[in-house]
Each structure stands twice: as C-alpha cells, then as structure tokens.
C-alpha cells in the first residue's frame, strides 16, 4: 500500500502519467483527456454504444489483431530473409530451432482471424445500418481497409516460400493476366498496339507489374516482402487513424436518433 503510494507520488511517475489515479468521477474524466492512448475515445458515451450485443467489439478486436500482427511481424523479420536461398530455411529454423516456437503460428492464425473479424465487423456495421448518413464516407474507408487486410494476408502468404505459398500466389496472380486491355491474355489487349508492335506482352502486362517477373520468382518474393512489411501496413495504419477519427467526428458509435 505504502509502496504504491510512494511510487505514485514520485516525480518519475507523475512525469509519465499526467493525472491522478482514475478513482473518482473527476479523475476518470481527466484520464481520458490527458492520456495519449485514451484520447482516441470520448469522455462519456451512450450506454448503448458500448453494449457488446451492439458492436460485438468487432472493430476493436480487428484493431487489436492488427497490433498483434505488427508486433509478431517485427519479431519474425528478425529471423527471416526474403531470398530464394534463405526464405524457406529460415521458416524451417523458426519451427525447429528458435525458442518461443509459436511466433509463426501467432502471426499466421492472427492474420486469418483478422480477415474473419474484418468481415464480421463489416457485417455488424451493415446490420445496424451504421453506414447511413453521416457515416457514408467512413464505410468507404472501411471498404479500403478490408481490401488492404486481404492484400496484407495475400502478400504474406507467399513468404514461407513452400509449395502452398507459390502456387496459391500463382493461382491468385494469374487473374491479373486476364485484366481487360492491360493483361496479355485479357480481352482487348490487341488494342494497345503501336505501329504493329504489341505493347502488352507477358513481359509488360498487369501481372508482370505485380510479380516483377513472368512467373512467381525471387523478384516476386522481394516485391511481396516489401509490400507486406512496409507499404501496406503503413497505408493501413494511416487509414485506421482516419477511420477512428471519423468515428468520433461522425458523432460516435451510431444509435437510434
């Protein structure tokens, strides 16, 4: 008791937490206003808006899974090199040699879970009609977040560089070959011909742009690694910030008028 008191009265503690313990009403309000992480939230909220039966906490769970993926992902990067020589062996070692051997499991199952919770969150938002005015645009941002979540999962699928990985990505990216006009097997690709020279070949079409090669190879591994670890997470983080900000600005969690 006394120790706790001493710590909480120390200069160090007070310099970190800018508020007293949130034990009474006043300080429970102060904590929400002065803590960086908590200031995402309003101070008070309608009881209905925090009912589990209403939101299922699904957006929150999705966000939490995103954080789990970030942390486990950074740890995995310590052990993994995205080259043909090392990728598969590093994953093997992760299973057989590394201590705390469930890192890869946490990351993989967390990713599957995040895809599922994103769908469920969207389903909830639809069912409560929360995409209706004034929240239309936040729904649009949500759709982009859904797309980014799927792309994160898809680009990560390649990294173990096993049979499962390259063939799943091959099947998935083969679609790009059929992009109208821009894929070399797509309808209308003949239209982009200049002076009798085909502009869209298997070495210049949409699929090539995605893979960095004519087939899923080392260039693809590198490309997907960068997308998976840097580009898409950054874009997701930015859109999440806007998403949360809009939830507040649009009047908080939706409810009957």
């Amino acid at each position, binding site marked *: 008791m006394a120790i706790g008191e001493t710590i909480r009265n120390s200069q160090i503690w007070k310099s970190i937490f800018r508020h007293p313990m*949130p034990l009474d*009403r006043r300080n*429970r*309000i102060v*904590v*929400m206003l002065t803590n960086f992480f908590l200031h995402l939230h309003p*101070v*008070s*909220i*309608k*009881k*209905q808006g*925090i*009912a*589990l039966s209403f939101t299922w906490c699904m957006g*929150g769970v999705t966000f*939490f899974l995103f954080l789990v993926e970030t942390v486990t992902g950074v740890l995995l990067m310590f052990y993994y090199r995205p080259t043909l020589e090392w990728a*598969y062996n590093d*994953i*093997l070692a992760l*299973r057989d040699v590394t201590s705390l051997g*469930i890192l890869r*499991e946490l990351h993989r*199952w*967390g990713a*599957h*879970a995040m*895809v*599922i919770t994103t769908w469920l969150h969207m*389903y*909830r938002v639809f*069912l*409560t*009609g929360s*995409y*209706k005015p004034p929240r239309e645009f936040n*729904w*649009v941002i949500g*759709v982009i977040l*859904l797309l980014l979540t*799927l792309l994160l999962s898809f680009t990560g*699928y390649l990294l173990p560089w*096993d*049979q499962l990985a*390259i063939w*799943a990505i*091959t099947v*998935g990216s*083969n*679609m790009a070959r*059929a*992009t*109208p006009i821009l894929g070399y097997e*797509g*309808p209308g*690709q*003949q239209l982009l011909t200049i002076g009798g020279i085909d502009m869209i070949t298997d070495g210049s079409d949409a699929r090539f742009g995605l893979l960095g090669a004519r*087939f*899923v190879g080392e260039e693809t591994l590198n490309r997907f690694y960068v997308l998976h670890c840097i580009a898409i997470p950054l874009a997701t983080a930015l859109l999440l910030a806007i998403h949360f900000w809009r939830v507040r600005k649009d009047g908080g969690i939706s409810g*009957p008028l």
Partner: protein
Amino acid sequence: MHSNGLFLKDVAGFLGSYYTGLAVMNAVAALILWRKKGQFGWAVTWAVFAGAMMILASLALSGSESLVPGLPLAARNLVNKLSGPVLYTLGTTALFTILFVFRKFFVQPMAAWMVFNLALVLMGLSMADANFASIVMKPDNVPIVGLVFLLAFFTWVATKQAVVNDERIKQGLPPMEKLDDEKVLVWPDLVYTELICMVAVSAFLLVWAIFLPAPLEEPASSVKTPNPSKAPWYFLGLQEMLVYFDPWYAGVVLPSLVVFGLMAMPYLDFNKKGNGYYSIEERKFSYLVYQFGFFELWITLIILGTFLRGPNWNFYGPFEYWTPYKVEVLNNVDLPQMFWVNLLDRPLPRAPQGAGTLVQIGTILLREAPGLALLGAYLVLLPPLLAVTVFRGFYARMGFIRYMIMANLMLLMLSLPLKMILRWTLNLKYLVSIPEFSLNF
C-alpha cells in the same frame, strides 16, 4: 475404399475431448437453466444430452472401428452420390430461406441451442470419416470452420435483436437501443470491456497457436504443380466463379465491381430508417440484397471451393476420397453453336478468306448476334423496364444516375447465379464467345 482403422486411432483423442467439451458445455447450460424459474424441463433435457455426449466421448476414446460414433458407410456414400454443385447451391439457398422466414422461431435461445448442438454433433460424427477429416483439419482450413460458427452465432445475435425491435416498432415503440441512451463514463465502462476483449482474444490466439502448428509444405518448386492448386481460402469464392466465367470477368471485373458496389452502397441506399439499430422489417430490401451477396455468393462459394473442390477443380462429396483420376464429362456448348447449328441447322457465319477487317468484325458480330442481343436486353433494356414497373418507387426517389448505377450493379451481381443456372440446365458455356479478342462471356 480406405480403411479407417489407423485413422480412428489417430483422432480418438481429439474426438474424445471434442465430445467431452460438448458435454461440459451442455452441463453448464443445464446448470444455468436449472437456476432459472420455469426452465426445469430444459435443464433436464440438456443434462441428459450432456450425459449422452459423455457416452459418445468414451466410445470415441476407444479408437476402435466398431465403437467410434460415426455416420454409417451407406449414408456417407449416399451423401457423396447425391451431392454436386446444383444440390449444394439449392440446399444452402433453401436453408437460408427457412432460417430467414422462420426467424422468429430460430432466434429463441432454446431453438438456437438445439441447432447449434445438432451442428456440432453432426460435425463430430463426420470427423470420424478419414476423407472428411483430412480436408477439414488441414491447418489453413480450420479458420473457415471457425468462420461458419462465428457467422451463425453473430447472425443469431443480430436477428434476435432485430426481431424484438421490429415487434416494438410495429407497436409504435422505439427500438431497444433507444432505452440505453443514458451516458456513461468511458473509464471504466468501455476501457475495461476493451481490456477484457483483448485478454480473451490473446488467450484464444495463444491456445490456437499452441495446438495447431502452421503448415509448411515442401520447398517451392515451379515445376511441380500441385493438383488442385488453390488460392488462399478467402479468395476461393472468386476461384469458384472461374467455373462459370473467364478470368477477366470472374477474377478482375467482378471483384472490382464488388469493391465498387460496397463503396457505393451508402450512397444508393436512400432508406433513412434503420440507422443505428438492428432491424429487418424497416430495410428488408437492402437486408436481403446484402445477405444474398454475402452468404450466397461469397461465403457458400468459399466453403464449396475449399471443402468440395478437389483435383482438377472437380466436385467431390464431403466424404469422398480426392482421387486425381475422377473424370467429369464436359459437354458445354456456346450459344452461337446452339443458335446457328443446333437450332437453325446452318454452319457458323465465317468471314471469307482474305476479307477486310470490317467484314471480319461484321461476321463476328453476326455470329455472336444472339448472345449480344440477350446481353443488350439484359443490361440496357431491363433497367428502364424495371424503372417503370417493379422499381418505380425506387426510380422516383433515386433519380436517373443513382438508379442506373444500382440497377446495373444488381444485374451484374445476378449475372453469376443466372450463369450458374444456364450452365446447369442448358450446358451453356459462353453467351458470347469471341476468341479473336479473348472476349468470352
């Protein structure tokens, strides 16, 4: 047929704990009901059921072929023989329709609990089949099993509230959500809820990670193509569409339209009601459209693509062995063939040797005229026709542009089930087939 003996020894431990889990779950339910007034009968029911599950658990633990509870071979063979894409689609459609129409019945906790238990027992019995288990227990497929149960659960949670709200609104009362509109402080109420959710999710993920190792197959080899080659599970609905459409449509255009349609949704749905609370009656149209797209065209296709499509993307029953030698007769015909050759008994129009570009294009257009006419009627004539009939009210309230976007999105969405039906009934391959421009539809 495969001998199940060794396999049953392997899964005995799993099935034993599975049924024990069911028993514990129902015992807890019985206990809770027993403490409530007027639920004595149900308490006894679930207690007895829990006892039965304990018996199944001990039978399963034996691991012996004659004792482990499972579906009889004849039943499994029958299911395999009967199942196919048509029956699967019709069956799931019928199931969703029944659940929707009789939702007032199914939202009752006891009815839902019964359905839930039934599904779990059926799952357990099926797990005793080596072929079923080998697909369902593939590590990357486990999440889909979870998805199915989560979707069922949350749909129940939502429908239950919607049914109550719809009843209240009919009586002129505000929805339930309105009763809780007093303000509470975020600390502690929300912050603690979030904390508990976080702990629960972490615990769940840890258990999952400890018990289910992540898959790692042989090192990648660009010469050894696995059969079947499948995209990640969340894209298998799209891969399933490839059965009915060419990649440019199933893999590029339709997915883009899904994304566009989702984004457009808030701007197309002009219904002001049902904003911020669960309700079905107040927004039946948008509800049904969304559920049709989500459940019929996305989730069931993923399940089909994952569990029922084997080598060469052939259909396999749930208890069928995935032999790569299964041959399916493909006798699909293009519409021009049907029209010119089968119906008019003439050869397909063909441009004379050395004809100019214009003549060639003209010939193609003539050859594809039936399909183009049908498509034109579908996409160009139908929207205005609907605007003055079924959708007259919509048209008046939405205006020309918004209405046209909605009508076209809906028709394109329906192009998938329509193409399925045409395939099943007429063996139609393509409505329009212009290989000269890689344009098949």
